[in-house]
Structures are given as C-alpha cells and as structure tokens.
C-alpha cells in the first residue's frame, strides 16, 4: 500500500514519468523470483560454502554415487559435483550478466543516438544492425572464436556485441516513439539541449519496457553462453561452468551417473524462473511492446 502511495506522489511531482504502478506477482512469478534470488545469492557466496575447491581432485574413481563425501556424487575426474555447481554459478551468472550489461550499454547508447540524430547516422547504424540481426548468433560466435580462441573476456565481448543488435532495435524504436510525444516537443520548444532531453525525458520513459527486455535478453545470453561452453568453445577447464559441466559428464549418463544432469537442472531452473518472472511483470506493466520486438 505504501508503495502505491509513493509511486503516486512521484507521478504527481513529475508528469512526464510513467504512471507508477504496483506490480503484483502471481504465485508462479513469486516462485520464479525466489529461485532467481536463490541462484543470485549462490553466485555471491557459492565458493565460500562449497565443501571443496572447484578444481580439486578428490577421489581416484570417476562418477561415484552420492555419499557423505560427495553429496550429489562425483564427476568424470572424481571432483565433487556440488562444489563445482556452487563455484560454477558465479562463472555462469557472472559472464552472462557482464555480457548483458555490455549489450545494453552498447545497444542503448547507439539506439538512442540513432533515434535522436536521425538522418544518415540512423540510416547507417540501422542498416549495419540489420545485417547482424540477419545472421544466426551462434555463427557469429563461431567465427570470432575460430579467429581469437576462447577466453572469458572474448566470450563476454562476443555475446555482448551479438546481443546488442536486438537491444539497439528495441531502444531505437522506443526512443523514436517517445521523441514525437508532446512533452518532448515541449522540451525542445523550451530550448533544452539534446542531452537534457535524452536523460530527462526519453530515458525515464523507456526504462520499464527495457527492464523487461533486459530479463528476456539475460535468459538468451545465459542459454547462449552455456551452449558455447557445452560445445567446448566457451569457458575452458578446469574452471567450473554449468554448460561445460554438462559436456564433461555426458559420457557418465550411460553408466547411470547424474553428473551431467545436475548442472543441466541448474541452468533450466534459473532460465525458466527468470522467464516466469519477466513474463509476469511484462503482462502487468505494459511491456508488451518490448516483448513483441524481441
């Protein structure tokens, strides 16, 4: 209740701000939010609560079943799977978040610049963007990795730049839609500079649709990075990462080991939950526009 009132007062003091609305999650959304927060916490504290180090070889045998030593079994090199999942959370989420932020920074900057400047800047940026959007993401990544090899900075840069194309399109479309609103015309008539207009009129009004888009984009990037790791082209051993853990332990499936299944479940719970939360929020906050443009 308190939130609603606050939102209303903010809305009153600044008529340009989007209408404040309290978002109420359904029970599915709440469950999703709980799981997402759970993994975020693990990403922060994982390495401190893990029983062993991610690269520590403990047993000589591979694919040991669950025991008091290995709570959910050991992997193909006799490392503790639970510990590797706990360490890997930070790698997987960290790389994906960094790449998403990079994609956002690049996409929003260029998107708003294109919408605000118009003319040749807009034409040039949009055409180049169209070409990159017309290519399968994985192909772009394979070309970059074939050329430069794979390391964490390369992964972040590749995923960030590949996905900035989508952000560019959304940000440009939203900014264009807003820039013809009467309050932007009014600001121009008042003689405000373009920096003022971008930061005070355009940005606040595209924040909410972009926030839901951020969630979707993060899911795509998590899937993208783990797929590359799964192909053996992402995070390199011995660093633990969920995608590469599935790859390393695929052989174990035929011996009845769940070593590959646990990290796969970890990825699925995170991405499905994120999608549920974002779905819930966008259904209530007018994020439909951003959703359609993905």
């Amino acid at each position, binding site marked *: 209740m308190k939130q609603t009132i606050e939102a209303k007062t903010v809305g009153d003091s600044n008529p340009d701000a989007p209408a404040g609305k309290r978002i109420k999650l359904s029970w599915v959304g709440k469950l999703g939010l709980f799981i997402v927060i759970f993994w975020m916490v693990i990403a922060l504290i994982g390495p401190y609560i893990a029983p062993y180090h991610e690269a520590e070889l403990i047993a000589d045998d591979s694919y040991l079943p669950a025991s008091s030593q290995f709570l959910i079994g050991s992997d193909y090199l006799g490392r503790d799977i639970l510990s590797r999942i706990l360490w890997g959370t930070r790698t997987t989420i960290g790389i994906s978040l960094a790449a998403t932020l990079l994609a956002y920074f690049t996409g929003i900057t260029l998107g708003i610049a294109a919408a605000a400047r118009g003319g040749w800047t807009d034409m040039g940026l949009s055409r180049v963007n169209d070409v990159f959007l*017309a290519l399968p993401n994985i192909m772009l990544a*394979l070309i970059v990795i*074939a050329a430069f090899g794979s390391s964490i900075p390369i992964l972040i840069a590749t995923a960030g730049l590949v996905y900035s194309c989508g952000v560019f399109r959304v940000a440009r479309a939203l900014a264009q839609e807003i820039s013809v609103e009467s309050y932007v015309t009014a600001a121009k008539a008042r003689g405000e500079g373009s920096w003022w207009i971008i930061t005070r009129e355009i940005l606040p009004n595209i924040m909410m649709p972009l926030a839901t888009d951020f969630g979707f984009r993060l899911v795509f990037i998590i899937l993208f990075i783990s*797929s590359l790791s799964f192909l*053996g082209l992402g995070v390199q051993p011995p660093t633990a990462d969920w995608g590469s853990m*599935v790859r390393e332990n*695929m052989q174990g499936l035929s011996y009845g080991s769940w070593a590959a*299944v646990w990290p796969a479940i970890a*990825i699925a719970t995170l991405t499905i939950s994120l*999608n549920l939360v974002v779905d819930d929020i966008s259904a209530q906050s007018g994020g439909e526009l951003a959703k359609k443009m993905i």
Partner: protein
Amino acid sequence: MGSMIARRIAIGLLTLWVVSVVVFIGTEILPGDVAQIILGQSATPENLAALRAELRLDEPAFVRYFDWLGGMLVGDLGVSKAGGATIASLIQNRLSNTLMMAGIVTLISVPLSVLIGLLAAMHPGTRLDRIVSFGTLSVISVPEFFVATFLVLILAVQLKWLPSIAYLSGTENAWDLIRALALPVFTLAIVISGQMIRMTRASLLNVLATPYIEMAILKGVPRKRIVLRHALRNAIGPIINVIVLNLAYLVSGVVIVETIFAYPGLAKLMIDGVQTRDLALVQACAMIFCTTYVALILLADIAALLFNPRLRHPS
C-alpha cells in the same frame, strides 16, 4: 508487388555480401599471423615462409578476398588444413546428412506444431491450453542440450530403446538408420516446436479478438467453424512466417544437436574446424549456414507479403 519482392531479394543479396566480408575479415584479421596460428608455436621460419607463400599472405587482403569470393561462387572452397583434402569433398557428404536430418525434423514438427497451436487457441484458458503454454515456455527457456540430456537419460539409458550416439557408417539398414536418427530428430523437433506452437496460438488468438469474429460468435456460428473457416484464413500468413523463421532457427539447432550425438553432419564438421582452427573450413561452413539462414528469412518475408496485402502498401 513484384518490385517489392525484387527489393527484398536485393536486400538479401546485399546482406550475404556483407556476411562474406564479415566472415573473411573475422578469420583474416587476427592477432598475429595466420600462418603462425595454423602451424603453432613450434613452426620453423622456413615452414612459416612456405605457408605464407602458399596462402599468398603477402598479397593485399582485398585481392585475396575477391579470390576467395570468386572461388566460393564456382564451388572452389579451398583446401582444408587437416590432411589437405579439398573442402568441397569434405562438405559433400556432411551436407546431405544435415539436410536429411533437417528435412525429417521439418516434416514432423510443422504439422504437429500447427495442430497443437490450433487446439490450444480453440480452447483458451482450459487445462489443455495451460499445459501447452507452460510446456512450451519451459522448452524455449532451456538450452537444446538440456532437452537432449533428458531424452538420452530416459530413452537411451533407462529404457534402452535407442542408441545415445547417432553415428552413421553409411552401410546400415533402414531400421538402424531410423534408430540412429531418432534421438537427434526428436530433440530438434521438440526444441523448434515450442516457439512454433506459441506463435501459432498467439496469431490465431489475435485474429479471434477481432470484431468480425465476435460478430460470427453472436450470430451463432459453431466454434469449430469460426476457427477453421473464419479465423484461420487471416492467421495463415503470420503462421507461415513463423514456421519459416523457426526453420531458419534449425541452423543454430543443428550445431548443438550434431555435437551432442556425434552426428556426422556439416555443423559437427564446422565445430571440429573451430576447435582445430581450420579457418578455410570454418569460412566455407559459415557461408553455407548463413546463406541458408538469409534465404529462409527472405522466404518468410515474401510469404508475409503474399498473404497480407496490407504489407504491400507501406505508408
């Protein structure tokens, strides 16, 4: 109408040209020397010089680019670094394997997705609809290898119905071929059906929300007839568009699935090329995949134009 299609094709060709530049630059402007990268750190100066001459690295990049592009157009894809076989011969078999898999996946998933999407849209809000919605959302939220891992776990390891590796020797009988293909095809079909079902359902529901459908409901037309005769005709354009776009998505799907099941297709060849940094091979495969992708997207665009006259007159 004709001129709009011609414009789309021109844009498609332009895109492909830029793609070729990107692919060439991407694998050409490297930190260091291509010859050094191919031969590794232990290469002798003589070997390096020989390879540089062979790759004609002393010539300007744009000359080599046009040579490469010209060769590509007449089917001369260059020579692979591993074993010195021509890339065209390496690709031949692999390409037909990949096309076979993609074809079977299409034949299975397209009719099934449209049918399930229609059923869900005809009974919105029912238990069936909710199960379909949650199921498809889950499928599109997880990586392809997650679906594959679970299918292997259940169908190959627990039930022992299917082999977990789709190795083709070329001499197996029809039954073994089907068994070998079953898991990769099943995985891909599930993965691309998720999005197709959702979009089919959404396009149909969009049409069902229009006034003329409300009119039909009010005058007492049976539900089945409304959906099949009134709504489907207007939804067919977007549905075909979505189907073709998702077939384009198969390009990324096969990369993952062929690797998981060690299927001897083009994507597996490309991934091996990336791992051994066989740049000429990666270039050729990337061009084939990108061309397919751009062509499919172009087809989706044209289909949308054909089925929706309103798109032909952009204001």
